C-alpha cells in the first residue's frame, strides 16, 4: 500500500436494541473512499443507508468494525464531517446568515477574526446563491432555499468529508434539478469528498463518481459498486441521450428492481423487456422536464 486511504469503513456491523432482542441493521459493510470523490449510497428504503452515514458522522457507534478518516478512528461527531440533513435542520429562530454564523463561530473561533468570519459566511452563502436572502429566517424562504442554506452551513465548516442525507429528497423535481446543478458547480470548485444518500437513480448517476448499491435489510451490506466514468462537467440535457449514461442508469435500476427486488414489486417489473421500455420512457420524461425547466424561470433563479 502506497498512499493511505482517505476514508475507510471496515467490517462495520450495527445492532439496535429492541424489546425482542438486538436487530442487526448492517452487517460487514466495507468501503474505501478517496479524497475528492463523490460517492452515492443507493438502496431501498429501510436498507440502512442512513445508518451508514450516521456511523461515518459519528452519530451512531458501530457494534463491530469501524471508520477511519485519514488514519484516525471516528468515534464522535465533529465539524470535519459536516452533515446536510434531509429536512434542512436550520434553527428556525435564526436567519440564514446566523445559522451559518453559528457553525463558523464554532469551527473558526480561534483562527478567524470577526471580519474574516463575516466574509467567510457571506462567501459560503454566495456559493449556494443565497446572498440575496441571507437575513431571512427559515420560515420566510422556500424549501429549496432552506436546503441551500443547509449546504452553505456544511460547506462553511470546511469539512474533510461532507455527508448528505437525501438532501434533495423533500423537494420538487425542478428545484431538485437546480440544486443538483449548484452542487456540481460547487463540487467542481472545491473538490470536496462527498457521501450522499439518495433514492433517485438519475441523481446518483448524474452526480457521482461511484455509486454504492446496498442490499435490503436486515443485515444490509454493500451489494455492488458502480464506477461512473462520465466526463465532467456533466449536463443533464446532453446526458439524457447519452448511451453510456443510460447504461449506468440501467445497471442501477437492474440492481434495485431485479437483484434486490422487494416483496410486492413483482408486478411492476415482471419482465426485462417491459422494464427496458419503461426506463426509456423515464429518460424521455426527464428530457421533457428539463426543457420546461429551461423555459420557465423557476423561483430559485430569482
Amino acid at each position, binding site marked *: 500500500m502506497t498512499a493511505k486511504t482517505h476514508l475507510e469503513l471496515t467490517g462495520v456491523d450495527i445492532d439496535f436494541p429492541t424489546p425482542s432482542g438486538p436487530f442487526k441493521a448492517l452487517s460487514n459493510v466495507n468501503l474505501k473512499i478517496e479524497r475528492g470523490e463523490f460517492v452515492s449510497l443507493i438502496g431501498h428504503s429501510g436498507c440502512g443507508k442512513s445508518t451508514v452515514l450516521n456511523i461515518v458522522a459519528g452519530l451512531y457507534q458501530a457494534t463491530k468494525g469501524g471508520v477511519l478518516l485519514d488514519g484516525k478512528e471516528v468515534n*464522535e461527531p465533529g*465539524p470535519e464531517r*459536516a452533515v446536510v440533513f434531509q429536512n434542512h435542520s436550520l*434553527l428556525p*429562530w435564526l436567519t440564514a446568515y446566523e445559522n451559518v454564523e453559528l457553525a463558523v463561530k464554532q469551527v473558526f473561533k480561534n483562527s478567524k477574526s470577526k471580519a474574516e468570519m463575516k466574509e467567510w459566511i457571506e462567501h459560503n452563502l454566495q456559493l449556494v446563491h443565497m446572498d440575496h436572502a441571507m437575513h431571512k429566517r427559515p420560515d420566510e424562504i422556500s424549501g429549496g432555499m432552506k436546503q441551500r442554506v443547509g449546504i452553505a452551513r456544511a460547506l462553511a465548516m470546511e469539512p474533510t468529508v461532507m455527508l448528505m442525507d437525501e438532501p434533495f429528497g423533500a423537494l420538487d423535481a425542478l428545484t431538485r434539478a437546480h440544486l443538483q446543478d449548484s452542487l456540481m458547480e460547487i463540487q467542481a470548485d472545491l473538490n470536496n469528498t462527498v457521501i450522499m444518500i439518495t433514492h433517485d437513480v438519475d441523481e446518483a448517476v448524474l452526480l457521482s463518481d461511484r455509486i454504492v448499491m446496498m442490499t435490503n435489510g436486515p443485515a444490509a451490506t454493500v451489494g455492488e459498486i458502480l464506477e461512473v466514468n462520465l466526463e465532467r462537467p456533466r449536463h443533464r440535457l446532453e446526458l439524457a441521450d447519452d448511451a453510456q449514461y443510460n447504461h449506468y442508469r440501467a445497471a442501477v435500476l437492474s440492481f434495485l428492481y431485479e437483484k434486490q427486488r422487494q416483496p410486492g414489486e413483482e408486478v411492476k417489473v415482471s419482465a426485462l423487456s417491459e422494464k427496458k421500455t419503461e426506463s426509456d420512457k423515464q429518460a424521455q420524461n426527464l428530457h421533457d422536464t428539463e426543457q420546461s425547466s429551461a423555459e420557465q424561470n423557476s423561483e430559485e433563479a430569482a
Partner: protein
Amino acid sequence: MSSMALKLLKPFGLVEKLNLAALIKALVVPMTGILIFLFIWNIGARNIHTSLGEFPGPAQVYEQSKNLLAEHNRERQKEAAFYQRQDDRNAKKLAKNPDAEIKFRAYTGKATFIDQIGTSLVTVLAGFFAASLIAIPAGIVIGLNKTLYSAFNPVIQLFKPVSPLAWLPLVTMVVSALYVSDDPMFAKSFVTSLITVSLCCLWPTLLNTAVGVSSISADLNNVSKVLRLSWLTHVIKIVIPSAIPMIFTGLRLSLGIAWMVLIAAEMLAQNPGLGKFVWDEFQNGSSNSLGRIMVAVIVIGLIGFMLDRIMLMLQKKVSWDKTQELR
C-alpha cells in the same frame, strides 16, 4: 353606538384599518356582553338580602370604589400633615437649642385599599420571580436528562395539586423559626406570602419547561453534536430558544396561579394585601362591606387579566414562531 365609537377611535388612527363589520366584532359585541352581565347582576343583587343588607349591585360598587379612593386620598393628606407637624416641631426645637436631640417617627396610619393593591402586586411579582428563577433552570436540567426526569416526575406530580392553604401553616412556622434577625430586610408576613406563592406556582413552569426541553427535535440535537457545541452553548443557542414557547406557556399559567394563591394566603394568614382587605371588610360587617368586597373582587380580576396580557406581550416579543397564533 357605532358612530360614537368611530369618533372615539379616530385620534388613534384605527378607523382606517377597521371596517364596520370588524368594528362591531371588536367593540360592540364585547360591550353588549358586559351590558348584559351588568343587567343580570343588577336584577340578581336586588333579590338577595343578607344580614348586611342587600347584595351590592353595580351602582353601589361604583359608589364604594369612589369612597375607597377618597379614603386613600384623605389618608395621604393625614400622612403629609403628620410629617409636616413633625418637621415643624423639630425645627422649633433646633431653633431653641441647636444641640437638641430630635426624633423622626414614621407615620403608622392604616393601610388603604390602594396600599393593599401595591403590597399584593409586589408580593406576587416577587414570588413569581423567585419561582421562575428556580423552575426554569430546574426544568431545563430535568428536561435534558431522562433519568432525572423519571426520578423527579413523581415528586412534581405529587406537589403540583397541593393547595396553598395546606402549605401556609408549615411555611409560617418555618419562616418564624428560621428567618430570625434583629433588623429584618423584609417583613415576616412578606416572606411567608412569597414562599407560599412560589411553592404553588413553581410547578407549571417547571413541567412545561421540562417538556419543552425534552421535545427538541432530534435533528437540531444532531446539528449541535456535529458542531460539537459545549453544554452551555447547546443550552443557550439551541435548547432555550426551542423551548421558549413552552416556557412561556408555563410562565403564564404560573403567574395566574400565583395571583390566585396570594389572595387566599393573605386572607388566611392576615398578611398585608388585598386578601387581608377582603377579610377585614368581612369582619367589619358594616352595610358598606359587601360593596367594598365586590370592588376588591373586580380589581383582583382586572389585575389578574392585566398580568396575563403583559405576559402575552412578552411572549409575542420573544416568540420566533410568528405563524403560531398566541392568545
